[in-house]
C-alpha cells in the first residue's frame, strides 16, 4: 500500500468529504470523527511520503496507469513532501482546535461545514502533489470555491468581502489557465516535466514570455502579492474564526509553492534569471509589499485586520526571497513557507480562543487577558516572537537566510525592508502584550458577557495551540537538519551562489 501513498493522500479525504455530506443528513454527530480520521490518514501518508522521498529523491505515480504526458502523473520531490506535511498537520490541528467554535457558530449546518473543510484540504493537497499543469487548475478551483463559501458565512461584511474575493480569485485562476493555454499552444503538452524539457528551444519565443507573465500575474492575484492584495484584509477579517485559522496559514503559502514550482520546474531558473530581466522589479515590488503591509498593520483597529496585513508582509518576504536569484534567498523562501504556516496558525488559533470567550476581536477585548486566559496568551506570545524573529523560534532562522540572501544579491532595499518590518512587528505585538498584561480587567470588557466568570478556553482549543507553539521552537532548533536534508536538494545548481 505504501506505493499508493500519493493517491491515498488525496483520495481518502475526498471520499470522506462525500461520506460526511451524506452522513450530515442522517446523524450530525458522526461528521467530526470522520473528518478527523480522514485528515489523520492524510497526515500519516504525507509523513510516510516525506520519509520515502528522503531515500528515493523523486516519487512518480501514474494515475489511470497511463504514462505521462498522455496521462496525469504525480511527481513528489522534497519540496512537495515538505509542503504536504505542513498542510496536513496544520489542517488536522486546526480541525481539532476549532470543533467547539464550529458547534457554536453553525449548529445546523455542521455536515456542510465539514464537507467544505475536507474538500478545501483535498484541493490543497492535490495542488501540492500534482505534476500536471491542468490538474493544478482544477484543484485550485476546488480550493477556491470551497474557500469562498467558508469565508462568506462570517458576520457583518463577510458576504461582500467574499464576493470581492470571488471576482479577484476568478481572474487569477483564469489568467493561470490562459498561461497554461499559451504553453500548450507552443509545446503541445500539459505535463510539467515534459514542458520543461521542450521549452529550452523556445526561450526566444514571445509566446513563452507572455505565458510566464500571465501565469505569474494569475498566481500573484491568488497569493495577495502587492498590488493585487485588495481582497485579503477584508476576507480574512470577517470570516468566521474557525475558517480564518484554516485559510490564512494555508492558502497563500500553497500559492507561493505554486510560484516556486513554476519557477524551478517548468520555467527553469536559466530562463527566469538569465533571459528575463524582471528580478529587480519583482524584488522592488516585494519591498513595497513588506513596507506597506507593516505600515497598514500599525493603523489597523482590530486584531484580525492587523494579522491580515502581517500576512501580506510575509508574502512579500517569500516572493522577494525567491526572486533574489541565489541559494540563500530561495532557501529562506522555502523555509519560510513551512515556518509562516505554523506561525500564522498559532496566532490565529489564539485569536480564535479569545473570540470564543470574549465574543470580539478588537484590541479592547484583550484587556487583562493574561490573567484570565494564560495558556492562550502564552501561545500568542510564542507566535508573536516567531513573527518578530526572535531566536530560537523558527521565524528567526528563515529571516536570517532571507537577509543573507539579500546581502549576497546586493538588494539592500530588501534587507532594509526586512529589518523595518521586524521592528514594526515588535511594536505591534508588544502593544498587544501590554494591553493584555498591564491593563486591568475592566467593567467595559466584552460585549455583554459577564466579565467575572470568564475562564480559559476549553482543553480541545488550548492543547493544539500549545502543540503548535512548541512546534515553532522545535522547528527552529532543527532548522539545520531541515535545510541540509530537505531544502538543499530542491534548489537546482543553476541558481548561482
Amino acid at each position, binding site marked *: 500500500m505504501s506505493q499508493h501513498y500519493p493517491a491515498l493522500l488525496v483520495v481518502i479525504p475526498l471520499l470522506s468529504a462525500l461520506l460526511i455530506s451524506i452522513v450530515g443528513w442522517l446523524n450530525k454527530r458522526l461528521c467530526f470523527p470522520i473528518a478527523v480520521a480522514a485528515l489523520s490518514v492524510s497526515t500519516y501518508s504525507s509523513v510516510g511520503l516525506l520519509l520515502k522521498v528522503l531515500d528515493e529523491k523523486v516519487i512518480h505515480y501514474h494515475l489511470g496507469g497511463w504514462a505521462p504526458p498522455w496521462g496525469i502523473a504525480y511527481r513528489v520531490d522534497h519540496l512537495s513532501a515538505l509542503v504536504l506535511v505542513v498542510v496536513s498537520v496544520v489542517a488536522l490541528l486546526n480541525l481539532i482546535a476549532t470543533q467547539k467554535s464550529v458547534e457554536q457558530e453553525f449548529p445546523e449546518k455542521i455536515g456542510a461545514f465539514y464537507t467544505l473543510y475536507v474538500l478545501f484540504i483535498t484541493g490543497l493537497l492535490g495542488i501540492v502533489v500534482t505534476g500536471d499543469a*491542468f490538474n493544478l487548475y*482544477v484543484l485550485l*478551483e476546488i480550493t477556491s*470555491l470551497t474557500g*469562498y*463559501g467558508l469565508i*462568506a458565512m462570517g458576520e457583518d*461584511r463577510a*458576504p*461582500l468581502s*467574499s*464576493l470581492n474575493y*470571488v*471576482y479577484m480569485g*476568478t*481572474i487569477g485562476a*483564469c489568467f493561470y*489557465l*490562459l498561461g497554461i*493555454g499559451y504553453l*500548450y*499552444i507552443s509545446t503541445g503538452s*500539459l505535463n510539467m516535466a515534459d514542458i520543461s524539457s521542450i521549452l529550452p528551444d523556445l526561450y526566444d519565443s514571445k509566446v513563452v514570455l507572455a505565458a510566464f507573465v500571465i501565469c505569474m500575474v494569475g498566481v500573484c492575484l491568488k497569493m495577495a502579492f502587492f498590488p493585487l492584495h485588495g481582497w485579503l484584509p477584508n476576507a480574512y477579517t470577517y470570516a468566521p474564526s474557525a475558517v480564518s485559522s484554516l485559510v490564512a496559514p494555508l492558502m497563500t503559502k500553497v500559492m507561493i509553492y505554486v510560484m516556486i514550482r513554476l519557477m524551478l520546474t517548468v520555467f527553469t531558473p536559466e530562463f527566469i534569471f538569465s533571459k528575463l530581466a524582471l528580478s529587480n522589479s519583482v524584488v522592488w515590488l516585494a519591498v513595497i509589499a513588506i513596507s506597506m503591509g507593516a505600515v497598514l498593520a500599525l493603523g489597523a483597529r482590530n486584531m484580525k485586520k492587523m494579522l491580515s496585513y502581517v500576512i501580506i508582509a510575509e508574502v512579500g518576504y517569500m516572493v522577494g526571497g525567491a526572486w533574489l536569484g541565489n541559494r540563500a534567498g530561495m532557501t529562506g523562501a522555502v523555509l519560510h513557507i513551512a515556518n509562516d504556516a505554523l506561525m500564522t496558525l498559532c496566532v490565529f488559533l489564539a485569536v480564535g480562543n479569545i473570540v470564543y470567550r470574549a465574543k470580539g476581536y478588537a484590541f479592547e477585548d484583550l484587556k487583562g487577558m493574561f490573567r484570565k486566559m494564560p495558556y492562550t496568551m502564552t501561545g500568542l506570545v510564542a507566535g508573536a516572537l516567531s513573527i518578530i524573529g526572535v531566536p530560537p523560534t523558527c521565524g528567526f532562522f528563515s529571516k536570517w537566510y532571507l537577509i543573507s540572501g539579500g546581502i549576497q544579491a546586493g538588494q539592500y532595499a530588501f534587507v532594509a525592508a526586512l529589518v523595518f518590518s521586524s521592528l514594526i512587528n515588535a511594536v505591534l505585538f508588544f502593544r498587544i502584550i501590554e494591553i493584555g498584561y498591564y491593563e486591568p480587567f475592566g467593567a467595559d470588557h466584552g460585549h455583554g458577557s459577564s466579565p467575572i466568570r470568564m475562564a480559559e478556553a476549553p482543553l480541545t482549543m488550548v492543547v493544539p495551540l500549545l502543540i503548535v507553539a512548541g512546534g515553532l521552537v522545535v522547528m527552529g532548533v532543527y532548522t539545520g537538519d531541515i535545510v541540509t536534508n530537505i531544502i538543499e536538494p530542491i534548489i537546482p545548481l543553476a541558481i548561482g551562489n
Partner: protein
Amino acid sequence: MSDLISSIVDNYNYLIYVTLMMIGLYAMIAKKNLVKKIVGMNIFQTAIILFYVSIGAKKDATIPIIQHGHGQGAHEITSSVIEAVEYINPLPHVLMLTAIVVSVATLGVALALAIKIYNQYETLEEDEILAQIREK
C-alpha cells in the same frame, strides 16, 4: 512591425478572443452593479474557452469520433489505420469541458453570494452598499 500586423490579420480568431476577454475584464473592473460584474466574469471565462477550442482546429478534419466506429464496421477499424490528420485535436475539447463546468460552478456560488448580500443590504449597487457600511 509589418509582419506583426500581417500575422495578426491572418490569425483573426485569436484577436476575437482577446477582444472578448478585454470586454469581460473591463466589465468586472468598471461596472458598479454586482450582477453586471458577474456577467463580465462569465464573458471573461468564455473568451478563454474560445481560445482553447480554436487551438484544436485542423484544416479539412472532421469531429473526433472515429467514423464507422460502431455496428458492423467496428471490427475492421482496429486493424485499419486511423490517420491523426483526419480528426481534429480532442485534447482542448476535453480541457474545456472541465473549464465550462468550473465556470458554471463559480457562477452558482457568485449568484448565491449576491442573494445573501441583497438580503442584508436591500440593494445590489456597490456605491449604495459602501454608503450603508460607512454609515454604521
